[in-house]
């Protein structure tokens, strides 16, 4: 895939590439994983950062759509190339389609309007620049690994923020699978990320990536 073609892809996405929106996220692959968590305290008694359950659900929905689209870019532009990665990516993308359906249901059940758009902040700040920089399959695997890890962390954050046990259990049923996906991508890409004993409960996304009510 040429850089021009990939830039065309991003224009089709309708977003201007905004370097610097997520400064750490735009660093080179040799740098540590981007740290884009905010520094707000987690309050497990209720929603963090003043965000409602609905806002958090829609944020998760928007991230699921973005990750699905990123896998699709991997297929469309042959960023995923080898059979093991292609096979895994196809299954992982299907998971995101299922999660999108689950989250859409949850938003509607909460009398909300589903935010059926790829998260624009994370797309512009992390995904689009990184897609442009992909030169090897491993680069692509590293990108989707970071997205899957962000998904896992977001679900932990949201789970500690929402109010009902049923909602918590449903969200972590998604988040735990996101963690599995991040793990297998790390192994497939031989990325060598550090294994932590717990997943942080902080919001891994910048505060402006939270979809407003």
């Amino acid at each position, binding site marked *: 895939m040429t850089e021009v073609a990939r830039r065309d892809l991003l224009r089709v996405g309708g977003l201007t590439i905004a370097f610097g929106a997520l400064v750490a996220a735009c660093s080179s692959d040799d740098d540590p994983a981007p740290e884009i968590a905010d520094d707000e305290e987690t309050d*497990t008694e209720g929603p963090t950062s003043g965000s409602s359950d609905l806002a958090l659900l829609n944020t998760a929905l928007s991230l699921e759509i973005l990750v699905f689209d990123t896998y699709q870019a991997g297929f469309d532009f042959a960023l995923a190339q080898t059979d093991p990665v292609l096979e895994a990516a196809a299954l992982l993308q299907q998971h995101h389609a299922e999660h999108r359906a689950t989250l859409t249901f949850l938003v509607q059940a909460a009398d909300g309007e589903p935010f059926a758009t790829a998260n624009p902040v994370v797309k512009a700040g992390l995904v689009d620049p990184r897609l442009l920089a992909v030169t090897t399959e491993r680069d692509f695997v590293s990108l989707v690994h970071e997205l899957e890890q962000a998904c896992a962390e977001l679900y932990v954050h949201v789970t500690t923020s929402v109010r009902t046990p049923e909602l918590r259990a449903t969200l972590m049923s998604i988040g735990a699978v996101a963690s599995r996906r991040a793990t297998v991508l790390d192994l497939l890409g031989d990325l060598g990320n550090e294994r932590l004993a717990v997943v942080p409960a902080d919001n891994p996304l910048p505060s402006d990536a939270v979809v407003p009510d």
Partner: protein
Amino acid sequence: MPRRESSSTRRAPTLVERRSFLRRAGVGVAVVAVGPVLVPVDRFLPAAGAQTGGDPALAAFAESVELVAVAAYEAGVELLSDDLVPVLQTFIGHHEEHAEIWAEVAGEAATGEPNAALLVALTPAIEAFDSQGDVLRFARDLENQLSVTCGYLLTVLQDADAVAAVATIHPVESSHAATLSYELAEGPAAWFPFGALESADVALGLDPAAFPVEPS
């Protein structure tokens, strides 16, 4: 790609050494034969809901099953090839940390001991460890059950600290299971045994009512 089981000359524990497993794990009870692999707890007892005692009791249960994983992996790690020993040792460290987190939530209900009933149920499988594959399959199954158990606990825990504990631990248990499946050279379907949504069905995990914590 997955690291294949090596033909290393790492010495397997003798039967006598393995039979000392329960003593080393601090459980002085008779062995109950339940088969060589992990099975759903409803094979032992009817599935039941949370034991009485609220969040502290559930946290003490969670602490105790984390310590079972520590004991089991310590019994099996010597059968692993050199490249996989650090993986299981990392997991042992994680489970020790998880146990500490749960102990803090459990407060006075914490025992600091592995769950005796679960350890007894798993001892035949642990004593039958004879190869790297045995250990990896056992650990994969246990991690999957721990993950399901975390999902179940999320449906019953009430306290914010307890919810935070299980939410931060749950994905790590899932990650362990996926790692072990990968190292067993299993395919993508086995990396996700419950599909796109992790199970919270305690019948597939470890039921606190089936493996009650004995007060220390």
